[in-house]
């Protein structure tokens, strides 16, 4: 594994940083929909809403390693914007892995180019959570396709997704082999956004509960519709990919906190010297930087394994577990360095502490990661 970045990757980072510093970071804390639209447009102009979409469908065609570099930069500027991208990547993944040519041509271009939008992945339900044994959403076979009914909760990009990858059963409710992934256009009749939640962190994302009421879906909009068992296997694979990207999200959030803490420690004087010169603060900063580097390397390794087609299940779970825990430690350490300033509502560091909190929940809780890792030891 070569850890040096290619010239293309260095240029990619630089261009994303420039855009993020100009079009995202200055507005990230404002949180209004007006700014959100501008930020999304800036990202779309750079084709960053779903960077893994192959070039023949209008995307950048980035591998996961390069995509992780993009997600880290976006997260360092606005964790909410990065979460929108991560959710979109998750929604597109089943199509990239197992979609037909028709599905790729129909859905992937919706996420690309200056007019591209986001997508959503709908798995979690109010009653059963993300337990694949208890998916209640059900698609009844009708002569020309399916009628989808059910409700999905805590869905990122609710009310704004160009399409939703919905996990539902087609028969024999309770059997994993009956699970399929339905590609539902966001404008389809019968989709009702019931509630958009006020979340503690990742502001600017739209997290909500969505109801599917007799949504008509054609057979060709179902990934591997005829293959019983394919949905379950695709889901596990999609999660393994998504977890690695949560690692990148965590690294970006932690990096923003470290940069904020470093800036403060350089300028805040105590007894006439910057507090960065005091070992108590300097050592904390050193630990934060080390923690971030460790998580970044684990994330890179997971992404590299995915790109190589290696055995990445454990690596991605470890990257997610380590990085999300790290981001929570680092943001809290940064808040400690800033003292009372880090406790004020509406400040960057206070926002980052709340942003980091979601990381141990999304893409499978950290306890789930421990289960996954321990089962493969």
């Amino acid at each position, binding site marked *: 594994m070569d850890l040096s970045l290619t010239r293309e990757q260095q240029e990619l980072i630089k261009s994303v940083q420039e855009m993020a510093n100009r079009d995202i970071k200055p507005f990230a804390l404002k949180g209004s929909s007006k700014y959100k639209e501008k930020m999304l447009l800036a990202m779309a102009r750079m084709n960053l809403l779903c960077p893994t979409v192959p070039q023949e469908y209008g995307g950048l065609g980035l591998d996961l390693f390069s995509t992780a570099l993009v997600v880290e930069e976006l997260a360092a500027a606005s964790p909410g914007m990065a979460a929108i991208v991560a959710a979109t990547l998750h929604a597109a993944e089943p199509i990239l*892995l*197992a979609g037909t040519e028709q599905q790729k041509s129909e859905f992937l271009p919706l996420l690309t180019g200056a007019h591209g939008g986001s997508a959503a992945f709908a798995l979690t339900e109010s009653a059963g959570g993300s337990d694949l044994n208890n998916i209640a959403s059900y698609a009844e076979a009708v002569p020309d396709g399916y009628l989808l009914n059910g409700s999905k909760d805590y869905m990122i990009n609710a009310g704004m997704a160009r399409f939703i990858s919905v996990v539902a059963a087609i028969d024999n409710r309770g059997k994993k082999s009956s699970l399929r992934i339905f590609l539902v256009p966001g404008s389809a009749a019968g989709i009702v956004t019931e509630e958009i939640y006020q979340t503690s962190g990742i502001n600017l994302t739209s997290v909500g509960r969505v109801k599917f009421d007799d949504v008509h879906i054609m057979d060709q909009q179902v990934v591997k519709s005829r293959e019983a*068992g394919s949905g*379950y296997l695709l889901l596990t*694979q999609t999660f393994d990919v998504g977890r690695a990207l949560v690692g990148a999200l965590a690294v970006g959030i932690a990096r923003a906190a470290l940069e904020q803490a470093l800036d403060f420690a350089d300028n805040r004087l105590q007894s006439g010297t910057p507090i960065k010169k005091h070992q108590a603060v300097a050592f904390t900063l050193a630990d934060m930087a080390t923690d971030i580097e460790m998580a970044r390397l684990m994330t890179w390794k997971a992404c590299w394994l995915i790109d190589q087609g290696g055995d990445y299940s454990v690596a991605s779970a470890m990257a997610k577990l380590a990085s999300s825990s790290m981001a929570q430690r680092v943001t809290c350490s940064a808040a400690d360095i800033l003292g009372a300033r880090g406790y004020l509502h509406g400040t960057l560091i206070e926002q980052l502490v709340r942003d980091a909190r979601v990381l141990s929940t999304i893409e499978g809780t950290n306890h789930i990661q421990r289960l996954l890792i321990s*089962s*493969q030891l």
Partner: protein
Amino acid sequence: MSFRDIGIKIQSAREEKGLSQEQLARLIGCSQSALSNYEKGKRRLYLSQLEKMAEILDKPLEYFVETLGHNQHPPVVPDRNQSFVEIMNQLNRLTDEDISEVMNYVRYLEWKRSGRA
């Protein structure tokens, strides 16, 4: 459904087909140790890999994904290679006289299995 459940199904279908781990590993293009890990449930299999395996073993994909019933779990048998390692470790701690006795007992077992007992 755990990885172990899928692994048990693979092992069962492989044996039903009369293939060794080496033979199946060669057919699906992985190492024997990787296949062993899949069967033990220590590694996760993805859709494309399992599709290939299902085709070779003449089973629908569904067969591997559905949870085993209680009576479908094979009895736990000690791993043969692991047992050899343990026996060697034990032997290493014995005196020459003890080892001679062990050898006598092994010969007795062989004689008994040969049907002359």
